């Protein structure tokens, strides 16, 4: 045991002496959380709209006022004719133009029908969709208010939409669990595979193997510090998301931490596996970054829903561990569910961990022969 602890201490020294390792371990997670949380946002706030009001009556003014004062939009310009639309989009500040037809107010009152156009800047599809959705919602709301006194002859059903678990549809709810999933697998797999291949490359692995340390002690000793540091990372990310984004853990914190430990363990064993198949550090880095980061971002359901993908991507994603962890962490953090609803995903992660360890041990033995 004393031999083992000395060995673990040495691994910590490696980590703390190398500022690059420290940066990857702690700098990247914090940066990722802040970048994803603030910069990558699906919410709109103060999007520029321009108004082309051909009617200019009491109702159009009221509606314009409602749109602008909603907090989602700010008025960039008041246009005078259709030719201005192209010009105002090209300037870039304006994301949508709202056009009221001639005699908008009169038609609405006399015929019960009037039309307005929303023209959005399609070169940014995401923003365009959001802007049109938000505007439509405000317009609908406005008609309903108006319908009370004026259009009482028509029957209307007005659905009241509520978002369960995330009432304000904040995007942090999506990004924080995603970032935890991405960061953990990336750091654990990358770091362990690099640290083990480094010993191979420098020839120190040979010396360790000849020493009385058992192979299992060598591997555990190398992995243990990363397990501890990754767990600290989880706590850091959760604290950050709670303090900065006000995103609490709805379910059991203990269960969440236990699941994180399982996921870290899985990622570490994946890292060991990568180290047994790669000849040098570059290869290990390459496999970990390209092989893990892209599929995790694109196929795990982190950003794009798996249900909307072609079947083949669904199959590919089903061998990716992050896919299961993302379900687990979202369920616990946001919906507050217990183990009862996520035991299947948990079981899959456990099996994956065992498989990775099994293959690594086999590979390791073959190398020793």
């Amino acid at each position, binding site marked *: 045991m*004393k*031999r083992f*602890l*000395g*060995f673990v*201490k*040495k691994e910590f*020294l*490696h980590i703390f*002496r*190398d500022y690059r390792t420290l940066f990857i371990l702690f700098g990247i997670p914090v940066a990722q959380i802040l970048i994803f949380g603030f910069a990558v946002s699906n919410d709109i706030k103060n999007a520029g709209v321009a108004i082309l009001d051909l009617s200019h009556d009491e109702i159009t003014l009221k509606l314009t006022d409602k749109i602008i004062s909603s907090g989602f939009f700010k008025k960039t310009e008041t246009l005078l004719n259709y030719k201005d639309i192209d010009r105002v989009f090209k300037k870039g500040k304006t994301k949508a133009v709202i056009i009221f037809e001639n005699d908008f107010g009169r038609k609405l009152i006399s015929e019960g029908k009037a039309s307005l156009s929303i023209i959005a800047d399609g070169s940014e599809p995401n923003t365009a969709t959001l802007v049109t959705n938000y505007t439509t919602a405000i317009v609908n709301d406005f008609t309903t208010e108006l319908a009370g006194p004026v259009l009482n002859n028509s029957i209307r059903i007005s659905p009241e939409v509520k978002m369960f678990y995330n009432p304000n549809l904040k995007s942090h709810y999506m990004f924080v669990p995603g970032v935890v999933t991405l960061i953990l697998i990336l750091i654990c797999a990358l770091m362990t595979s690099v640290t083990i291949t480094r010993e191979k490359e*420098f*020839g*120190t692995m*040979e*010396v*360790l*193997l*000849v*020493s*009385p*340390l058992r192979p299992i002690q060598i591997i555990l000793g190398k992995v243990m510090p990363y397990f501890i540091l990754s767990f600290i990372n989880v706590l850091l990310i959760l604290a950050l998301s709670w303090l900065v984004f006000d995103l609490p853990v709805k379910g059991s914190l203990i269960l969440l931490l236990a699941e994180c430990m399982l996921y870290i363990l899985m990622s570490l064993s994946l890292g060991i596996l990568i180290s047994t198949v790669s000849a040098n550090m570059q290869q290990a880095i390459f496999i970990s970054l390209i092989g893990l980061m892209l599929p995790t971002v694109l196929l795990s359901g982190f950003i794009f829903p798996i249900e909307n993908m072609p079947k083949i991507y669904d199959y590919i994603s089903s061998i990716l561990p992050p896919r299961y962890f993302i379900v687990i962490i979202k369920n616990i953090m946001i919906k507050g569910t217990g183990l009862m609803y996520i035991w299947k995903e948990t079981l899959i992660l456990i099996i994956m961990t065992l498989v990775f360890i099994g293959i690594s041990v086999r590979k390791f033995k073959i190398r*020793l*022969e």
Partner: protein
Amino acid sequence: MNNTVISVHNLVKKFGSFVANDNLSFEVYAGEIFGFLGANGAGKTTTIRILSGLSKPTSGEVNVAGFDAYDQTEQIKKNIGYMCQKFSLYEDLTVKENIILYGGIYGMSRSLIRKRLIELLAKLRFQEYENRMISDLPLGLRQKLAFSVAVLHEPKIVFLDEPTGGVDPITRRQFWESIYETASRGITVFVTTHYMDEAEYCDRISIMNDGKIVALDTPENLKKQYNAGTVEEVFIKIARPV
């Protein structure tokens, strides 16, 4: 002198159908410097791996430091030291930390490590380097230190696998002085090398070719037997038959 520390009888090691070690038999005595020569691919590394407990023989009897190479590899590992061509020291740790690490791995007590550390630093005139990173040391010093670390736990045998590869002649000369000094303390030195002048320094040498030991004797006797002036000539006559 005739105290055997390594005894090998009819050792065979096969990888599939390839025979890496073909019926080797030899003995190494306590306190001697045993040179283990052979061209690349002759099977030296395979033999060293078996002797150091990293790999198991296919057949034959192998006994190292009194322990069996089939099922007592744990004990063998505790009683040997090892140094390879690539440095076995960690460059981002200090001299002291490396010594503490290896002492710890070999199960030495804290106070014993401390004592050896002081002795070692004094012997190598290394005192001012105690807290320096290995990466700051010149190559020659690193190599001496790596060797001292390999024998820190006073093993019965130390295996040196091409320890002087890529080192200048003066450093090699100094390195051999520490090998002599170690052997004089009773530690057996089992060394492979490509430098034939180094083979002259050994008490006995064996020359391997195609998985077999084709010659084993003192350098003087081999030179007489093959009517050669140097070990190098002997080696060429044996390993590269015209």
